[in-house]
């Protein structure tokens, strides 16, 4: 059985093509049903950055044609139009690719966390559609484990990869958690929206939106379940705010250092974290010189993000080593599949011989008590198990060294076993 991956990602296809190749839940379910009609294992990973079909079948060439047909039907593009954007890899390379994807090593931002959830979702969808078999089951479970391992053993996912996440994380370096904190939004541009959303996701208590127009402030505040005020009330609001996010379209400074200084006196030294994502800047840079005030503008935040992404790239080297080690493990397991039917046949034959010999000796064993009978059963089972232990271990070792098929054939020949199909049926 061969594992095959056919797919595309942001590295090969522009967004216009990725849109055509995106599966929603229903389309994916239908595709999985079609692909698995003749017993093929199949799973589809579809995100905004990639669409990948993982499938397992005995005939990889025919399987590739079928997957191409699926993607062609989905996108409405011909085989030749799709081909330049698609990559096709098999077995070890396919496993290595999925492990890299799950670890976030193939993502735009190395180590991003969302992809692991998307791999999990692809696996669950395939399981619900009953299109996973032993190979895809093992592949996806191991991929999920690799994703977790990489994030636990390296710092690849630790630092923020966006301006909004960097702002929230910096705020957490000032405050003991953001739960229950008060946020003051000055204006509300797109980045401020994202920053506010990031802060809300970390449990901030109340959001106050200040705007030149009170009506506009109220309208914006409703989006965050907060309260709107006019810009004239900012100094008063500063007394209670913990984080200030500024993003007005004003051409001048909206909040000066003396204004903040007056508020700080009333705050009895409680710190404030200022985030200025407006261009031109809304906040007087001298605010950062005041005790207890920490001011970061858009350039500062982008520098933090750039450093953080660079740090992630450094960690990616360690993550690659983990992924490679896991891919070797998967390869060894996959190779061991070559000898599993032969081992199963050998054990089945040994067991049937044991049973037959016990039946033949039934007359001589009839006088035994139940406990003596159990002892004979245990003794014969142990003899069989011990005799087969070493050949089993050796066959598995040979499989790991890619000699599994040779050994399996030799065992079948020496012990007069049936062919693999019979053994596989017996095992199942």
């Amino acid at each position, binding site marked *: 059985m061969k594992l095959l991956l056919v797919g595309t990602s942001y590295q090969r296809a522009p967004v216009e093509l990725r849109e055509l190749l995106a599966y929603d839940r229903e389309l994916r379910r239908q595709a999985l049903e079609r692909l698995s009609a003749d017993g093929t294992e199949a799973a589809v990973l579809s995100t905004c950055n990639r669409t990948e079909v993982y499938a397992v079948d005995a005939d990889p060439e025919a399987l590739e044609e079928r997957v191409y047909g699926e993607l062609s039907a989905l996108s409405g593009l011909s085989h030749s139009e799709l081909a330049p954007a698609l990559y096709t890899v098999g077995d070890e390379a396919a496993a290595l690719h999925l492990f890299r994807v799950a670890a976030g090593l193939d993502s735009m931002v190395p180590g991003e966390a969302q992809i692991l959830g998307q791999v999990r979702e692809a696996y669950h969808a395939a399981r619900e559609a009953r299109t996973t078999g032993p190979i895809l089951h093992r592949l996806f479970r191991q991929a999920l484990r690799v994703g977790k391992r990489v994030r636990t053993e390296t710092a690849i996912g630790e630092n923020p990869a966006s301006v909004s996440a960097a702002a929230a994380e910096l705020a957490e370096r000032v*405050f003991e958690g953001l739960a229950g904190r008060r946020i003051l939004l000055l204006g509300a541009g797109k980045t401020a929206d994202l920053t506010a959303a990031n802060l809300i996701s970390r449990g901030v208590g109340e959001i106050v939106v200040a705007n030149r127009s009170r009506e506009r402030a109220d309208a914006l505040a409703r989006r965050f379940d907060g309260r709107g005020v006019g810009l004239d009330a900012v100094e008063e609001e500063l007394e209670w705010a913990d984080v200030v996010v500024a993003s007005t379209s004003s051409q001048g400074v909206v909040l000066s250092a003396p204004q903040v200084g007056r508020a700080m006196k009333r705050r*009895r*030294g409680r*710190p404030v974290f200022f985030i200025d994502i407006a261009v031109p800047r809304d906040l007087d840079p001298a605010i*950062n010189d005041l*005790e207890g005030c920490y001011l970061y503008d858009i350039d*500062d935040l982008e520098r*933090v993000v750039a450093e953080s992404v660079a*740090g992630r790239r450094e960690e990616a080297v360690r993550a690659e080593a983990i992924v490679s080690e896991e891919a070797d493990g998967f390869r060894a397991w996959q190779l061991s599949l070559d000898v599993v039917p032969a081992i199963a046949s050998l054990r089945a034959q040994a067991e049937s011989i044991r049973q037959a010999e016990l039946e033949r000796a039934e007359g001589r064993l009839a006088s035994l008590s139940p406990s003596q009978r159990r002892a004979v059963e245990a003794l014969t089972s142990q003899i069989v198990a011990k005799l087969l232990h070493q050949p089993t271990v050796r066959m598995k070792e040979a499989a790991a060294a890619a000699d599994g098929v040779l050994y399996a054939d030799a065992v079948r020949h020496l012990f007069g076993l049936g062919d693999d199909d019979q053994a596989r049926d017996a095992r199942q």
Partner: protein
Amino acid sequence: MGEAALLLFWPALAGYAEAAVAYAGDTVRPGRLVGYAIWGVRLGWLAQTALLVAQAADADGFPWGTWAGSLNLFVWMCVGAYLIWGCRAPFRLLGLVVMPVAALLLILAWAAGGVGEPARSEFGDVFLAFHVGLILAGFAGFTLAAALAALYLVQERRLKRRAPGVLRLRFPSLETLDSLTVRAVAVALPALTLGIGIGLARLGSEGGGFDAIMGVTLLTWVVYAAFLVLRWEAGWRGRRAAYLALAGFLLVLLVRLVLTPFFHFEP
């Protein structure tokens, strides 16, 4: 037995020194060496505990009556306090300050003969156990508070200057460091107060002169009492509070490292 105690000094020092180096290394590559640092602290502290037990078993009376002996006990208390909550994930970097200080003070105690055969003190055992024990416990708390305050100032400076890699090191938040400094002082000050009270009571009953050590110890008490009053009444926090905690610690160092060994050989 004194030799056994001396033998235990080396693993204790090795543990503390290894922890100090590992914490320093952790600032270069965060997360890699911190495990080794914590094990260094644990093993070093266990070795020093065994050292103190060996000294106590061998002693005829209170075993840490000399300056060097009390320094040995003081290091054990500081590292013990750090072990109780300093080793937890958010505060591990405290070790960056605590462990080098602990290693240096332990070397000093060894050089001055405080880790071998214990010397007999001229003072009564019960008096010494309470007076010295409480004052040292108070000083250990102030040492921890100073480490927290130093860490606060480092982190505050990094945030203010938007230092490169500001998020790379896993410092506790400023607010956490600030509130823990206050808590450490709030726990240590009553211990120092009791220790001073016992000393003054003895001075009243048995007589004796008022010396520089007593004067600076009282001044230390005043600084830390002012620290708490200013915090609770005037809202002093952040940088100012950190500087005050460090100023108090300078007085602790003055008492422990200058006045006690050079002007007065009892703790």
